[in-house]
C-alpha cells in the first residue's frame, strides 16, 4: 500500500475518497479508498464484520462506521459509496456494481499480474477470466448443488472444533487425505462424521475437503477459460490449505496454474466497488462539467 499522497489543486481533478461495501452471505466487508485523477489509489481503511446471524442492516452500519473511524473521515467526505453483493440493504449507497465486476477490479488492484480471478465466498465460487483493464471476459459460477464453498468448510471446521484460521495449517499437515464424494454439503457433512468415527485425522479430513474443492474450482476455472496466474479473492483466499491443494491438483492435472493470494483478498469486492465508485464519480463529474 503506497503511503504517498499526491496533492492536486484543481477541483475537478482533485483526489477523491470513496467507499465500497460488499455485503456477502457470511460477512460484510467495507473498504475506503482515496483515488487520484490518474487512477493511483490508496487504501485508507478495510473492515470486515462477520454476520453470524445478526441483523444485517445493523452489521452493515457497524462495519461502515468502523471503516470511517479507521480512515478518520466523516461520511460527508465520501465522494461515492458503492455497494456490491447483496447491495439492496446498503440504503446509503450511491451506486451498485455486480459482484464479478468488483472482484475483478479488486483482484487486479491487489495482484496486478493476475489474468484470472477465483472468488470463493461463503456460498458461491466464481471463476473469471479478466483482461488488463480488469474487464471480465468470461466467467463461470458454481450452481446450486455444490458443496465446497466457504460455508461448508466453516461448518466442518466448527464440527471438528477447529478455528477458521487454523484450517489451512491443519490441512497442510495431512498425510493421507480422504476425499469427500458427496456433492451436497449436507450429505458431505455426514461423510465427514463418518470419517471422524472411523478415526481419520482432522488434517486428513480437511485436506480431503480441500482437494475436492480444488478439483471443482479447477473445473470452474477451465470452463471459464482462465489463464495463469489466478488471483484468489474472497474469504477462502486466506486458507493456505486450499491454495496448496489448488496448486497440487493443478499440477496433478497437468495444468500450470500459478495461484496468487493477498492478505487483503477478502476485501477484493469492497475494494473493487470503491474503485469503480471513483471511476463512476469522475465519469459523472465530467458529464456534469461538460453540460455546464
Amino acid at each position, binding site marked *: 500500500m503506497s503511503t504517498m499522497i499526491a496533492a492536486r489543486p484543481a477541483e475537478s481533478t482533485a483526489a477523491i475518497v470513496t467507499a465500497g461495501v460488499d455485503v456477502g452471505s457470511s460477512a460484510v466487508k467495507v473498504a475506503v479508498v482515496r483515488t487520484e485523477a490518474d487512477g493511483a489509489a490508496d487504501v485508507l481503511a478495510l473492515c470486515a464484520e462477520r454476520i453470524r446471524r445478526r441483523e*444485517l442492516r445493523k452489521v452493515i452500519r457497524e462495519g461502515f462506521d468502523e471503516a470511517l473511524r479507521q480512515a478518520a473521515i466523516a461520511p460527508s467526505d465520501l465522494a461515492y459509496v458503492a455497494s456490491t453483493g447483496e447491495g439492496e440493504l446498503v440504503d446509503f449507497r450511491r451506486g451498485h456494481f455486480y459482484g464479478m465486476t468488483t472482484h475483478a477490479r479488486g483482484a487486479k488492484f491487489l495482484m496486478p499480474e493476475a489474468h484470472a480471478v477465483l472468488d470463493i465466498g461463503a*456460498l458461491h465460487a466464481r471463476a473469471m477470466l479478466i483482461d488488463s483493464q480488469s474487464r471480465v471476459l468470461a466467467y463461470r459460477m458454481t450452481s446450486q448443488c455444490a458443496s465446497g464453498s466457504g460455508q461448508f468448510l466453516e461448518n466442518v471446521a466448527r464440527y471438528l472444533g477447529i478455528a477458521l484460521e487454523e484450517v489451512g495449517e491443519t490441512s497442510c499437515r495431512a498425510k493421507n487425505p480422504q476425499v469427500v464424494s458427496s456433492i451436497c454439503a*449436507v450429505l458431505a457433512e455426514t461423510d465427514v*462424521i463418518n470419517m471422524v*468415527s472411523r478415526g481419520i485425522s482432522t488434517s486428513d479430513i480437511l485436506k480431503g475437503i480441500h482437494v475436492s474443492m480444488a478439483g471443482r474450482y479447477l473445473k470452474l476455472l477451465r470452463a471459464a477459460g482462465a489463464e495463469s496466474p489466478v488471483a484468489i479473492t474472497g474469504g477462502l483466499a486466506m486458507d493456505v490449505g486450499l491454495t496448496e491443494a489448488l496448486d497440487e491438483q493443478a499440477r496433478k492435472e497437468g495444468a500450470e496454474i500459478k495461484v496468487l493470494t493477498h492478505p487483503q483478498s477478502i476485501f477484493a469486492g469492497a475494494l473493487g466497488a470503491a474503485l469503480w465508485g471513483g471511476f463512476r464519480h469522475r465519469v459523472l463529474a465530467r458529464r456534469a462539467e461538460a453540460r455546464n
Partner: protein
Amino acid sequence: MNGIRVCVGIDLGSTTTKAIVLTEGGALIGKGITNSRSNYDVACEVAREEAFIQARLSLLREALESDPALSHLQKGFLSDLVRNFRMEQHLERLDLLARVLREEAAAPRYRGHKRELDAVLEKIVAVLQERAAVHFGALAVRKSDFFRDLAAADYMSLAEQLGDPKSIAFETLCALFDAAILVVENTPGGSAFAQHIGSALERTLVTAGATLQAFGAKVGRAVEAARDTELVVVRTVGTGYGRQRLPFPKEQIRSEILCHGLGAHAMFPSTRTVLDIGGQDTKAIQVDLQGIVTSFQMNDRCAAGCGRYLGYIADEMNLGLHELGPLAQQSSCRVKINSTCTVFAGAELRERLSLGQNREDILAGLHRAIILRAMSLLARSGGVSNEFTFTGGVARNPAAVAALEELIRENYGERRINISPESIYTGALGAALFARRAERAAA
C-alpha cells in the same frame, strides 16, 4: 441384587441417535436420545445410557406405585426428582464445559489477551451456572432437551453482549465454544444415574414438604434399588443411517425401512402407511396388517426438505427447534417457497426477510414446501389408502404435522393420522422388537 434381562434397539440416525429398552416380556421401559453426531460409538453409548436412566426411573416409579404407603406422593415427587436429576446432569456437563473452555483458552494463540479472556469466560461460566436453575425450575419450558442447545443459546447471547472487537471478539468466544462443546459431547457421561441420583434425591427432599421428608428413608431405599438393579442386555439390534458403522455382527443389523415399518405397526397396529422424515432422508413405507413392509420409497440423495433443513433455519433465526413450528403456525398468509435445498436455506431465508416478507409467513411456506416433497414420495410409494403414521424427528414439529394433515386431506380424503410424541423413537422401537423376536426365536 436382582437383574433384568432386556433387549435394546438402537437407531443411529444422521442427526440424532435413539435407543429403546424392552424387557423380555415386551414392556418398553426406557428410551434415550442424543444429538451427539461426532462418533457413532459414543452416540450409541450415550443414547443407551440415557435409555437406561429412563429404565431405572421406570423401575423406581413401579416400586413407588407398588408401595401403598408411597403411591400417593409418587407423581409430583417423581417429576421433581427427574428435574433435579437433569439439573445435576446439566451442572456436571457445565463443569466439564468450563474446564475445557479454560484449557482451550490457555492456547498460545490467545496469549496476548489471556487475562481479559479468562475474565470474560469466568463471567460467562458463572451465568451459565445460574441459568441452570432457571432451565430446570419447576415450571420452566426448555428450548431443547440437549445440553448443546441449551448451553449454546446462553453462551452465544452472552458472547454477543460481552464480546468486544477491540479486545475479546465475539468471534473468538464462538470459536472457543465450538472447540469445547465438541470435547464435551465426545465425553460420555458414564453411569450418570448412579452418579447423580443421590444428590438429586437430596435436592428434592430439601425442597419437599414434610410428608415427603417423613418417607425419606423409604424412598431412598427404592432409589437405591433402582440404581443397583442390573440391566442385562441379551440382544441389541441396530438400524438407521449409520448402522453399518455399528460394532455389531450383520445379523444384528436391520434396514431402517423394516424397523420403521415394524415400529409404527407396534405403536399403531392398524397403520398401513408410514412417513418418516429424519435429519437428512425421508422415507415413505407401506406396511400390511402384520407390520410387514410391502413397498417403500426413500429420498437419500439430496437432503433438501429434511429435518436438517429445519435445523439450519432454526440456527439462522437463532431459535430452538421446538419453537420453529409454533412460530410458523402464527402465519396468516403463507409465502410460496419452491426450493428446499438445505444448503441454501439460510441464504433464501435472508433474501426473503430482506424483501420484507414476514418471518412467520416464510416459515409457514417452508414447512409446506417440506411436506410437499414428502407428499410426492408418499405418492411414489403407493399413496395413503388407509390409516397413516408420521414418524421421525420432524413429526415433533406441529407446523409440519398441520401441513401434512391438510395435504393428506386434500389429496387422499379423510384419513386417520397417527402422530405420537414418541415418533422419533419409531425406528429404535422396531429394532428393539426385532431384537426381541430374534431372542425368542433363539430361545
